[in-house]
């Protein structure tokens, strides 16, 4: 049997575009016509990507989507890396959308859990970022993409600037498979600073009433860093970065890693480590990395996205950051995720809970937050082959075929907020999986991928442990007075320290009393601005001087 047409998708796209001809001026649509246009361009059951990650949101388009007539547009299958805005769930309440594939839903985690329970939201899958991006090209190919850019010209070329994020990935998967690409822009200009996405990939441009929503997610005020976090940072620098010669890496978003960034130019400098460790990064433009950059520690940084206030600083440091001919930062979330998973030697992050097998989760009871970048960055891609010192240093056998390992490091205080133990018998994630009827428990990082755990008690080199029993003992030795920590005996601990499976501060030449805030290269946001020579312009809520 032969098929009658090989161009059904293309024909359908042309049909839909033709229906809005009367609204279009070239590729440009007036903002007041967006709802009418969406009602023609979207068909029931369409797979729709609505751009939104943890920072950048196609906010004008998401609001417009809540206003379409559910009698005309319904049963949409949404594909979104992040459920962030109330709009994103309103489209389900209103019956416009039915099903969703997503990665992260932190800002809407209770409402997501409730709507699943109430049968208002059907979750097709919760993915890591890379799985979601990959599936856009396999079985989640979009019919329509709703995305955001900074500027367009009247031909439809786009400038996405420092916050390029996942825009090119989404558009690529849509445009080259006869999907429809609709872009909201902050402004339409005669000439773009640079072209991030060419006009031939874009179908509709609409100038929004307001700039797209953008959050400063990676700004950590050094004022909030505690001396316990500084102690953990010092042990991590000595016991992990220095010990394994780690040069390429990614950091999480927490204060523990912010402390490390601010200790490099002071404590790291004193240890003579400049140029030897932490030179090549995949990281958002963390303001707390400014002192390390200014002191010559950092060679390169590739970014997932931008950070509010860091635009001028990044533009002035093209030797460090990826920038365009116009000078401004170019980020790319999908490539940064690939680099963070596959091309760096180490991930360092934090968690809210860890069980005795080092499985960790940030899931809280009754909430469904999905994942950020940690599951991709925080795992060892097993097929990788590499020859960096750090990679090879993790080989633990004499087998000529033994593989190296990526360092996956978890750092945290044994109690969060001084009262809630991080080490637990059972992760809350297991109960949440039952409540939300998930196929798998929402584990952030699997224990068998974790190589090091650092707490204020010490470092556990669990990759070295011989078998499950010894891994558990190593974790117990640094679990303090949590129930997991109470299991360790002093005899077992000394043997683990002798074998180098556990190191306490004194084993690393660190005195606990040396962990002082005076070691931080910047003590507050104002210091960061000074380090940057005034180039860093923090959002007003961080300007507290």
């Amino acid at each position, binding site marked *: 049997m032969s098929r009658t047409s090989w161009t059904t998708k293309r024909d359908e796209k042309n049909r839909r575009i033709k229906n809005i001809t009367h609204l279009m001026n070239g590729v440009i649509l007036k903002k007041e016509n967006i709802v009418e246009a969406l009602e023609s361009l979207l068909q029931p059951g369409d797979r729709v990507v609505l751009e939104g990650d943890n920072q950048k949101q196609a906010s004008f388009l998401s609001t417009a989507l809540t206003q379409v007539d559910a009698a005309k547009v319904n049963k949409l299958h949404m594909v979104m890396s992040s459920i962030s805005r109330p709009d994103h769930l309103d489209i389900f309440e209103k019956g416009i959308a039915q099903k969703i594939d997503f990665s992260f839903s932190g800002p809407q985690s*209770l*409402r997501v859990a409730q709507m699943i329970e*109430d049968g208002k939201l059907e979750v097709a899958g919760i993915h890591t970022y890379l799985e979601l991006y990959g599936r856009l090209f396999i079985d989640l190919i979009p019919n329509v993409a709703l995305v955001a850019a900074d500027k367009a010209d009247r031909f439809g070329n786009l400038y996405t600037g420092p916050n390029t994020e996942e825009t090119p990935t989404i558009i690529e998967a849509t445009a080259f498979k006869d999907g429809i690409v609709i872009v909201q822009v902050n402004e339409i200009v005669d000439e773009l600073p640079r072209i991030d996405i060419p006009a031939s990939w874009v179908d509709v441009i609409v100038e929004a009433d307001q700039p797209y929503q953008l959050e400063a997610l990676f700004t950590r005020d050094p004022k909030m860093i505690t001396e316990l976090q500084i102690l953990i940072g010092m042990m991590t620098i000595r016991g992990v970065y220095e010990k394994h010669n780690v040069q390429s890496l990614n950091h999480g978003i927490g204060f523990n890693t912010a402390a490390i960034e601010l200790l490099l130019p002071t404590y790291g400098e004193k240890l003579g480590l400049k140029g030897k460790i932490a030179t090549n990064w995949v990281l958002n433009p963390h303001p707390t990395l400014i002192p390390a950059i200014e002191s010559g520690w950092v060679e390169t940084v590739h970014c997932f996205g931008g950070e509010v206030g860091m635009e001028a600083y990044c533009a002035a440091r093209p030797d460090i950051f990826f920038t365009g001919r116009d000078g401004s930062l170019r980020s790319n979330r999908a490539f940064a995720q690939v680099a963070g998973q596959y091309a760096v030697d180490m991930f360092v992050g934090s968690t809210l809970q860890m069980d005795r097998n080092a499985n960790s989760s940030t899931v809280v*009871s*009754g909430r469904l937050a999905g994942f950020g970048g940690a599951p991709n960055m925080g795992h060892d891609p097993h097929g990788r082959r590499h020859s960096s010192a750090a990679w090879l240093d993790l080989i633990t056998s004499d087998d000529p075929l033994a593989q190296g390992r990526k360092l996956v490091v978890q750092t945290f205080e044994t109690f969060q*907020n001084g*009262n809630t133990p991080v080490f637990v018998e059972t992760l809350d994630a297991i109960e949440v999986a039952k409540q939300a009827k998930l196929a798998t428990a929402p584990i952030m990082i699997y224990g068998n991928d974790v190589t090091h755990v650092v707490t204020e008690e010490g470092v556990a080199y669990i990759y070295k442990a011989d078998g499950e029993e010894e891994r558990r003992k190593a974790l117990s030795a640094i679990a303090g007075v949590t129930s997991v920590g109470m299991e360790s005996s002093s005899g077992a601990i000394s043997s683990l320290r002798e074998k180098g499976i556990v190191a306490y501060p004194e084993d690393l030449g660190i005195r606990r009393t040396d962990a002082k805030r005076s070691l931080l290269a910047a003590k507050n946001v104002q210091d960061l601005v000074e380090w940057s020579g005034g180039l860093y312009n923090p959002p007003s809520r961080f300007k507290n001087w």
Partner: protein
Amino acid sequence: MKTVFLFPGQGSQHPRMLKDYSLTDSIVANIFSEAELVLGEPIKTLDTKERLASTVFAQICLLIAGVISARRLLSRGIKADYVAGHSVGAFAAAVIGGVLSFTDALKLVWDRGTLMEQAYPKGYGMLAVTGFQLPRLQQIVNQHNQHHSIVYLSNINAADQQVIAGEIVSLSALAGALESAGIQKAQLLNLSVPSHCPLMQGVSTALKDSVAGLKLNEPLIPYCSNYSGRILTTAETIGDDLWKSVASTVKWFDATTLIYESGVRAFIEVSPSGVLSKIAASSFPEARIMSMDSQNLDTVSWLWRDSETV
């Protein structure tokens, strides 16, 4: 900035709480005369120290103060996108949301308070705990219940603040167990009624009949449920919440988190304020929290308008 009015529940009342309202304000005058008509007593006799020791009068005074306070906010053009009442505060929230008339609310609350007071005359109470997340607390409570008379989780106010109801002897034993597990605070409240648990089933059933006899209007403002932690937008579901909640856990943390996720960043607690503002400040450090008693109407009005420009 999206705004919610928070209506406090029992525990927030204090003697002379209605004394400061001036009858020259027509809102106050109207509410007072309506209340005197229904209750058959002068307002000034309701908020004495002696009378407030009774659940009935405490709840009635909270209703009156909540409705006056919210109407004064509305009269200044301060709009509520949501109303959320904690426990008995839900009745004032339903009045302000347009679901329940003030007169009907007075009658319902009078019955509710009376039934609650009569249900368990003594030996019962409530224990407030601070410092443990819910799963950890739940685990200890479950273990406790295997060997003692059963206690119930009656309020989940914040991620680490809950209230437990039951027999005082059992609650005291639980407090001991929680203290040895390292909890920050476990304190018996000065309340003799084990609210928001199955021990109130009889009260709940009686209230169901009372609510069924009333004419409820469709809400003008979405209402946060106590018993389900959902946002409710129909008269029917809000009516159900009013009778169900007395015998179910108050899911205050869920309800307030849900409106925060829905975009609310301005929380205004009506009089007598303090308790709910403090909880909101700990749960939502980035929100703007306003409190009618510590900031007068002019200040709240100015802060709210200022928040509109953010």
